[in-house]
């Protein structure tokens, strides 16, 4: 046994700190919470406002544009149909709106941060350990501070998902910016490019394939985290899984799991396809 006299807890201090943070920055947190909630609500309304068959047609058309392959075009539509068939349509849309908001947040902060890392070795050295920590920590852990600061519901889910999903896009942006060939940059500078022009005309566009790969990764990670966020009452497909697990209802669990996989496949294929489409005009 570990000797009793060495027992020491930091839990009360952590709690005090979070309480203090809540008191001191309460209004700011509230404002953030409210704007996030409205954003999610609006997106949810739009997603549900579009009839299910329009979604299926849209996805099918997009798949055709991207693949020009009959099987790859028909399959996403059929898969999407099964979600509705299982009665999970609106729940899936709820999950999708959470994914969209957290991905938007991740890109909004992750891409500029990644560019800063690509430009400055200092910023890179400062942020890399942070990203490492964000990626190695079990995803549940983010739920705790997020929940403490933003209560239960969709907002802590977004915050936790953001922390979990932002590293890939940030890292791949950094990588992409750094990989731009030195001789191309040199030529641009020789023709009188300012640092800003160099970024806008040369470095960013050449880093774009890498950045888009990061967007794809971030989206997939957001989807997996959003499901876990059912633990802080975020709702959506994760809640179905959670309920099924609690009630040992294998059948219901399978249907919810199926719906998650379908969403993942469709989002992945379509975003992957757009990345390839973007790169191909040269070929």
């Amino acid at each position, binding site marked *: 046994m570990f000797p009793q006299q060495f027992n020491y807890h930091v839990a009360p201090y952590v709690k005090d700190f979070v309480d203090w943070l809540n008191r001191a920055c309460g209004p700011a947190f509230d404002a953030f919470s409210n704007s996030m909630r409205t954003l999610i609500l609006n997106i949810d309304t739009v997603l549900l406002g579009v009839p299910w068959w329009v979604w299926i047609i849209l996805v099918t058309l997009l798949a055709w544009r991207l693949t020009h392959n009959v099987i790859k075009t028909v399959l996403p539509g059929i898969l999407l149909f099964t979600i509705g068939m299982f009665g999970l349509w609106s729940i899936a849309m709820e999950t999708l709106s959470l994914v969209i908001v957290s991905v938007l947040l991740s890109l909004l902060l992750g891409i500029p941060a990644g560019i800063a890392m690509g430009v400055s070795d200092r910023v890179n050295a400062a942020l890399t350990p942070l990203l490492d920590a964000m990626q190695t920590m079990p995803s549940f852990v983010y739920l705790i501070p997020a929940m403490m600061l933003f209560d239960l519901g969709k907002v802590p889910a977004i915050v936790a998902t953001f922390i979990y999903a932002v590293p890939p896009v940030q890292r791949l942006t950094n990588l992409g910016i750094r990989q731009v060939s030195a*001789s191309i940059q040199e030529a641009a500078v020789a023709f009188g490019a300012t640092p800003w022009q160099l970024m806008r*005309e040369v470095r960013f566009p050449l880093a774009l394939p890498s950045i888009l790969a990061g967007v794809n990764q971030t989206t997939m990670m957001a989807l997996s985290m959003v499901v876990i966020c059912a633990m802080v009452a975020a709702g959506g497909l994760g809640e179905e899984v959670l309920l099924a697990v609690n009630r040992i209802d294998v059948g219901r669990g399978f249907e919810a799991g199926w719906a998650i996989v379908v969403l993942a496949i469709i989002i992945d294929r379509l975003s992957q396809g757009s990345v390839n489409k973007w790169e191909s005009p040269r070929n």
Partner: protein
Amino acid sequence: MESSTYLLEVENLWKVFVEKDSTLHMEDYLSGSGDVNGQVVAVRDVSFKLKEGEVYVIMGLSGSGKSTLIRCLLRLIEPDYGQIRVKGQDVTAMGLKELTEFRRTQVAMVFQHYGLLPHRTVLENVSFGLKLQGVKHKEREKRALQAIEKVGLLKWTKHYPEHLSGGMQQRVGIARALVQDADLLLLDEPFSGLDPLIRGEMQDELLRLQAELKKTMVFVTHDLNEALRLGDRMAVMKQGLFVQEGTPRDIVMNPADEYVKRFVQNERQVSLLTETAEEKKKVSNLTPLIGGKQGKKAAGSGR
């Protein structure tokens, strides 16, 4: 000011590459007290002057500092000491803004590895410098097309660089430099990556363009043949130092030291071999080789 008779003047230029933990004391080098450990002198007290319309070739093996020197001229690499004047303007004293303006209007460079933008078409690549200057789209395209026509790539304007052969890519590089309308052209081993046949063709092309445009050029190469064909004057560089400067003919006939001699030896042998016995007396007359003015003959074979 007498200085204004020269387009480019370089005076006592030094560039020393310094390893992380050593500091550079220029005075030590200037007083000639020997090199410091951990510091590499890439350009050592180099001076030269170019009149307008002159083609000046800097020749040396790799690592001789010639690429560093040409980069110093527009401060892609910051020189540590010395002065560079273009049309009387002191490039070394320019602030960032002036320097950007100088790079946009006074000078244009052609690179060994082309440095083309892979995500831009030939047309967009050639007009890139104008875009940086803020020239309007229509005007940009018009001027770019003129430059592309000069290098004979009009059929390829909509293509991306990776569709083009090395020689064609370098034509794009040359067009991109021409469109700037700068008086001073810097060419850093532009044809070194090309196979011999194409290289010869590109040299002809450059001579043809030069006959027409009369630019002032600094041309860096490691190929003596190229130096002889293109240069009005040339310098041989070794470990950062100009070991000899003069007309190509001077350098071939009177090499200053062993290094230059080794460089030109081959050339002399080749020229001796090609002469028949009765022409041997003309060996000293290397003009057909050095010529460079045979551009007219090659003019038609550009494409």
